């Protein structure tokens, strides 16, 4: 079994172009995903009322996972941080959460770098669901959400020995530009759908898409 997940929608097909700025909650971006182990999870954009779930999620993370994400001890989220992380404009700042029933098990987000068409992207997945390919799915879906908002590139930083995270970017199909300094790998890549990223998505869809009928969003 490979380390991957599948989505019921194809994020690399693109989305409707909408105007920049704050938007209402984009319910149309909600979808179900299925891990390679057959676990069905729900993915949706974050909302302000996810605050308590996000606090609980952070408390459940291992110390190593927190360090990988924040490069810091960061033992708990402050109320100010929670508000910042859950209140997004769905344009310049966007976050997806993944739920297993009522429990939040992963968060992925992008934040536009002001006055540029770049956005910083980051993921955090509970230890239990790491190496299930959830990160790559978050990346594709975040790219899909970002493109209509004028974002053309994602940037990210990760530790040089964080093979799991580096593998997500490598396997995404996006053409990466990387540099390394002080054991930190900096990545930048265009997020338009490419033949390669589309092929990577379809390969996973073929392997892991659940047998039930498609919901019509994917190609």
């Amino acid at each position, binding site marked *: 079994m490979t380390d991957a997940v599948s989505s019921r929608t194809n994020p690399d097909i693109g989305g409707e172009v909408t105007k920049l700025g704050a938007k209402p909650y984009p319910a149309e971006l909600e979808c179900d995903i299925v891990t390679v182990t057959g676990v069905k999870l729900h993915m949706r954009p974050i909302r302000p009322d996810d605050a308590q779930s996000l606090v609980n999620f952070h408390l459940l993370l*291992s*110390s*190593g996972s927190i*360090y*990988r994400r*924040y*490069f*810091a*001890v*960061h*033992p*708990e989220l*402050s109320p100010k941080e929670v508000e910042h992380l859950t209140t997004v404009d769905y344009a310049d700042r966007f976050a997806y959460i993944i739920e297993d029933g009522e429990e939040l098990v992963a968060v992925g987000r992008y934040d536009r770098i002001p006055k540029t068409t770049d956005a910083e992207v980051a993921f955090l997945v509970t230890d239990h669901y790491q190496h299930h390919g959830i990160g790559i799915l978050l990346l594709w879906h975040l790219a899909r959400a970002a493109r209509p908002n004028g974002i053309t590139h994602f940037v990210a930083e990760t*530790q040089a*020995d*964080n093979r799991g995270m580096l593998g997500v970017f490598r396997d995404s199909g996006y053409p990466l530009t990387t540099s390394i300094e002080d*054991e930190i790998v900096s990545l930048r890549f265009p997020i338009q759908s490419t033949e390669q990223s589309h092929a990577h998505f379809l390969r996973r869809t073929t392997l892991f898409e659940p047998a039930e009928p498609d919901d019509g969003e994917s190609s």
Partner: protein
Amino acid sequence: MMLIINGSTDDAGHEDPGHPERPERLAAALAGVEDLHLGDDLLAVAPYSATRSELVRVHESTYLDQLGAFCYEGGGDLDADTYATYDSWSLAQYAAGAGLAVIKEMRIRGDGVGFVAVRPPGHHALRDRAMGFCLLNNIAVTAAELTSVGERVLIIDWDVHHGNGTQAIFWEDPNVLYVSTHQWPLFPGSGAPFEVGGLNALGATVNLPLPPGATGDVLRQALDETAAPAIDAFKPTWVLVSAGFDAHRADPMADLALSSGDFAQMATFAASFAPAPGRIALFLEGGYDLAALRSSVGAALGALLGSDPANERPTSGGPGAEVVRSNRDAREIALRIAHDASQ
């Protein structure tokens, strides 16, 4: 055997509500001392604030000025983890001076065990930067005082986080042997086994990273197989311990799986390298579960003082034995490459 501890300093002014590095930690550590019922065998030395000349041995003067000014302007967040308040500058200087006062008393007596029970902690503080809850590097200030009078100082750092500040400060100092056990991966990200010291001090840094879940038997294996030969060769005249207790299995900040009984055994290990009585002092670093901190402080000091608190049993059976072996190999290769490069 007498326990020599720094005198009481009111540390309540260094607090950020909700932050885990909080005044209750020091109260818990001191409760661990009280549990030993030492009576007349407990000596509290007077509080001492480190002087500028003592601090600049390990910190840049401009950093000290900036930190002091930051505090007197009201303080705030220095980074994602580290805070300072109006009172922090004064308290940090007392924390940095506490070890100096303790070793001064020990040198006069030629006896005793030192316990530097202070906060804020110190081992992440770099020459020019606060980091990881730490403002001034308390143990480094004391080690630098000792080396200034010709001593050879072994620092054993069993805090669950790597003491990057201490390592960096003494990276090129052949008179300080820095040995660290710590969880990996974990903040601050340094402490790989191939980090073995600078060209002037090759081998004087020993890093023993361990995976989450590692138990006391694995730590002891790492110390016995990799650290002990290096310490024997170094021949320390003083032993200082960065005694964080956040590797305890109950600690919320990390995922090693030690018990208080393991800290007793590690204290005994450290003391076995002290060449004479009155040559070992423990410095409080991390430890964020108050009950575990209390019991572990009691266990570690009890082991050195001949007291026998009801410790939890030492732990065993966790992962990491293969990591100990690969770490040792990585260290040997790094030393060989560095030696060849320096020829």
